[in-house]
């Protein structure tokens, strides 16, 4: 993997991290946590924020890639095993967003009956991105920030006239157990801390980088929380049926009736960012595979993308089944890889470094 810049990591957290949570995530959260969905989301963000902080601390202390750190501490074999496991994790974490995005594109951007073929070109883009290194991720983040900064606030502003924030009350109506469940069952949408772990050593730690990255993470988290609040304020008790949330919140603005759905302009722009965001876990998967197998990126890129394409075809009509499997059955696996393993790896590396 080539070099990233701290600026690009910040842009990633500000613009690309939130877009992964604008489609099915709000409805999934509302299903469990109802009007207290902000608490569930905040809980996840705090956990992931802690991971981000630990990884940035590690970056400050060592500046070495994770593979090298693991190799030094546990040997090459274990490093490869860890990378192999994370390759599987990144592959799994790419699948559900991929199906989400496919449904979004086919249901929202195409008015009439559309086929999977309309979405298939994504895999070419993803394949191309996978053959490139981290620098492509950085450039994507550079492009994503202005697009997101323009389109996201406009969609929120268009939704505000129809938002009744009192719908978020009462705060005591949902038991803490359901809020925690909402949080745990949505762990598969929180993969960004793990990405940062694998970017270790691929960016140069500069003065104040930890503060900048954490600040960017906080900004991205705020965008997600704002979106969730507006989403629930618009839909209240029927929020859990609103798939493709970002396409739904702004459509009720009647001041633009004569112009039609002007929000589509901004949706298209956000869809662009989403597409690039979706490439990231695939790229990370290929990166981990490469380190495990020790080969050039072409072969794993082709294999991973072909497999994802095949699974997208296979699960074309089974989104709900996959979502249920990932959120209600495999949540512990996702939580392990998203929070515990990165935190454990960072803590271990830090502890070992302190010991003589």
């Amino acid at each position, binding site marked *: 993997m080539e070099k990233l810049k701290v600026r690009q990591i910040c842009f990633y957290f500000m613009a690309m991290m939130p877009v992964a949570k604008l489609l099915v995530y709000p409805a999934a959260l509302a299903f469990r946590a109802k009007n207290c969905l902000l608490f569930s989301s905040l809980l996840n963000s705090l956990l992931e924020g802690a991971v981000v902080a630990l990884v940035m601390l590690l970056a400050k202390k060592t500046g070495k890639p994770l593979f090298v750190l693991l190799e030094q501490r546990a040997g090459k074999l274990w490093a490869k095993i860890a990378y192999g496991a994370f390759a599987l994790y990144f592959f799994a974490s790419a699948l559900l967003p991929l199906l989400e995005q496919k449904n979004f594109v086919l249901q929202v951007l195409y008015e009439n*009956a*559309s*086929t999977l073929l309309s979405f298939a070109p994504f895999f070419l883009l993803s394949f191309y991105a996978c053959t490139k290194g981290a620098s492509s991720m950085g450039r994507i983040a550079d492009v994503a920030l202005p697009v997101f900064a323009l389109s996201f606030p406009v969609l929120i502003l268009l939704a505000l006239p129809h938002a009744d924030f*009192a719908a978020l009350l*009462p705060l005591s109506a949902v038991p803490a157990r359901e809020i925690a469940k909402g949080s745990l069952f949505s762990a598969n949408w929180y993969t960004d801390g793990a990405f940062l772990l694998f970017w270790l050593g691929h960016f140069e730690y500069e003065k104040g980088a930890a503060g900048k990255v954490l600040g960017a993470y906080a900004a991205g988290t705020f965008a997600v929380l704002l979106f969730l609040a507006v989403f629930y304020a618009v*839909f209240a008790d*029927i929020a859990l049926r609103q*798939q493709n949330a970002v396409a739904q919140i702004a459509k*009720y603005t009647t001041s633009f*009736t004569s112009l039609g759905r002007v929000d589509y302009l901004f949706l298209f722009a956000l869809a662009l960012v989403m597409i690039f965001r979706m490439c990231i876990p695939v790229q990370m998967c290929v990166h981990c595979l490469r380190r495990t197998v020790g080969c050039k990126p072409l072969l794993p890129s082709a294999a991973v993308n072909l497999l994802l394409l095949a699974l997208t075809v296979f699960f074309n009509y089974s989104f709900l089944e996959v979502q249920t499997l990932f959120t209600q059955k495999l949540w512990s696996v996702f939580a392990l890889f998203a929070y515990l393993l990165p935190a454990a790896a960072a803590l271990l590396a830090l502890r070992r470094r302190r010991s003589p």
Partner: protein
Amino acid sequence: MRTDKLWARVFLAAAAVLLLLFFSNDFGLIDIRETAIVVALGIDEAEEGEGYDVTAQIAVPANAGPGSAANVTAKGVRTVSEGIAELNQETGWYPTLVHCRLILLGEALTERNVFDVLGYFLRNEAVEDSCQVAVCAGTARETFGAGSPVNDISASAIIKVLSSEAQKTGLVSVTILKDFAVGYYSVSESGALPYITVKEEAESQGGSAAQAAALPSLVRNKRWRPVREPLPLAAPASAEGGESQGGKSGESKGGGAVFQASETMLFYRGKKAAILTPEETLAYNLAATDTDFAYGNVTAAQDGKEAVCSLQMKIGKKRRSLSFENGMPVFTFTIRAKARVADTDKAAPILNIAKTQIAEESVLRAAEQKFKEELASAAEKAARSGCDLFGIKQRLYRFRHKDYEAFRENILSAAELRYDIRFSGLK
């Protein structure tokens, strides 16, 4: 270098194949001539037996000038979905519901839970939940059959009556599917829909209600009458409409029916609870919806004589609040409005006409009194029928959650209503 060239060629070939697929229409585009553009759906209790009659009003585009519409009814279907499927199956058209802007419910349907049928639209993304929902007197099928001088397509005429502009002036209480569903699935379990009535009194040049009623309306085989009537293909329907209504000359088409939606039907648990009169609808809109500018008549003494004054009202502040006094709930309407006299039914001195912006105190007090009476009447109707029209129960749940269990069953009747309504004129 050689590998780069190879990949460039592979990508070029892939792009060419994708372009070929796109231009050969293999991306699932639908031929517009094969498509039924459903602009409105009407749902009634089945005329015979159990189930529903689902009427689709289908826009028939014309080459030039305004198009017309055909009504197709699937009779005796058990679900709305079955009705739509039958429409597709028996006409061979592909019904796209993305252009459906109105769901009209027959009055008889409101005796049972209307979400028995509206559930289809919540399950199905084919219809945007921003489409309007209304109830009509009689059946939706007959209402769609009424010809309007306002628009050749009756659904479009109804949608004009239910415009957001109408809502802003308080004459109509417009509701979209999303908002109606939010109310139903909330703790209130309540909602309100505009109640459409057809007045067969308007006259228009070159058309009549009878002619409009003869617009192609198809019902097929044992469920759809008449049996084996020709399909409502675009060209014949368009020609028929044009011929019968003198479309060529540019004269006004349509019949003599006008649609009114100034009454509002209240719902509790999906069933009809009560109907608000036009005055109560206006008061409800002024107190609780987006309406901030309205017209209304009051009778007041002006210069020592009784006169009917038409007032223009501009709502400056509207607030509803729930509080507790001595352990009992108190619901307060706070409304501040400015009013000016737009007209009176009596001749007035030129000075009064010149200073029409300044409403007399007696007129303002009369306006306050009338507003209060109508609002109280609407609130009483709602409370009696269990409909949480003003969101009292919802406020109890959201803002006084600890008292919710104690009052959830009787809050509407137990709450004392207070009206803090003040009208002022321009000074």
